[in-house]
């Protein structure tokens, strides 16, 4: 016997933590960690619902597996985007104000001495006509 209020409460807590993580973090990778928490809260809800005896078609388990798969696809794309962002802008700070007029944020010049920084190089190249 298990009372289902515990997994439901845990899912709610995880979702709240995930939302907090998404908004409160500056680092894009850490934002992704929040997203993972939200996804897992959803998974937990699915599993909880699927553990009831009247759940049809093994839906809880199957859909959870699907969500896990989708999460894998999502995180691979997201990390690719983050890497590209890092290469172009030299940072992955989501609170930074991008300079929309030039196509590259002002943070690119944050470390002008670092000539080996690929992002700085990229920014210079992009700013050329």
């Amino acid at each position, binding site marked *: 016997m298990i009372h289902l209020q515990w997994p439901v409460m845990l899912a709610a*807590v995880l979702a709240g*933590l995930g939302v907090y993580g998404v908004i*409160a*973090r500056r680092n894009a990778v850490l934002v992704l960690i929040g997203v993972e928490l939200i996804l897992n809260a959803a998974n937990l809800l699915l599993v909880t619902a*699927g553990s009831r005896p009247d759940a049809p078609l093994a839906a809880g388990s199957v859909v959870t597996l699907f969500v896990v798969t989708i999460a894998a696809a999502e995180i691979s794309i997201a990390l690719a985007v983050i890497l590209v962002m890092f290469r172009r802008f030299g940072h992955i700070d989501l609170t930074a104000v991008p300079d929309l007029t030039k196509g590259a944020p002002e943070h690119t010049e944050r470390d002008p001495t670092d000539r080996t920084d690929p992002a700085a190089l990229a920014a210079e190249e992009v700013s050329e006509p």
Partner: protein
Amino acid sequence: MTTRDIVFVVVGVITALSGLLAVSTRHVVHAALWLLVCLGSLAGCYIVLGQELVGIVQLLVYVGAIVVLVLFALMLTRAPIGPQPDIDAPVWQRVVAALLGAATTALVAAATLPVIGQQSVDLDTPVVTTQQIASAIFGTWVWPFELLSVLLLVALVGAFAVSRVVLARRSRS
């Protein structure tokens, strides 16, 4: 409180605490490691709930692949060791984040607790066996399953293409 309840509460508290640390620690790498703990203990929750297959997949995919990917990403971007003062957004943003997080928690709890939170299930005889899951996947759910394989392929190609954008631009200039 049955035995399963107690076990679940214990594992759940570990999950929640590690989740909290994952989103609040000032060490960049620690955040990923706390996530590892969180997801791993969540796999334990699944097992407590009688879904062994899902728990194992959780371990394999999340703990084994996704967290590793996150760690790689942290290493490829700037991930200094030690506490970082600017890892978090400004204070007002964190307050907003806390409010929204609490609201989300309240919302999910309010929406789901009355629906399935009042029930209790007997898990001593497995509700869903792995064989049932297998036959469901390759029976009822076969088309979504096949679509998911396409999705994974697209994600693979997409990730490759996204990273190629920068390389192509660099080589052109």
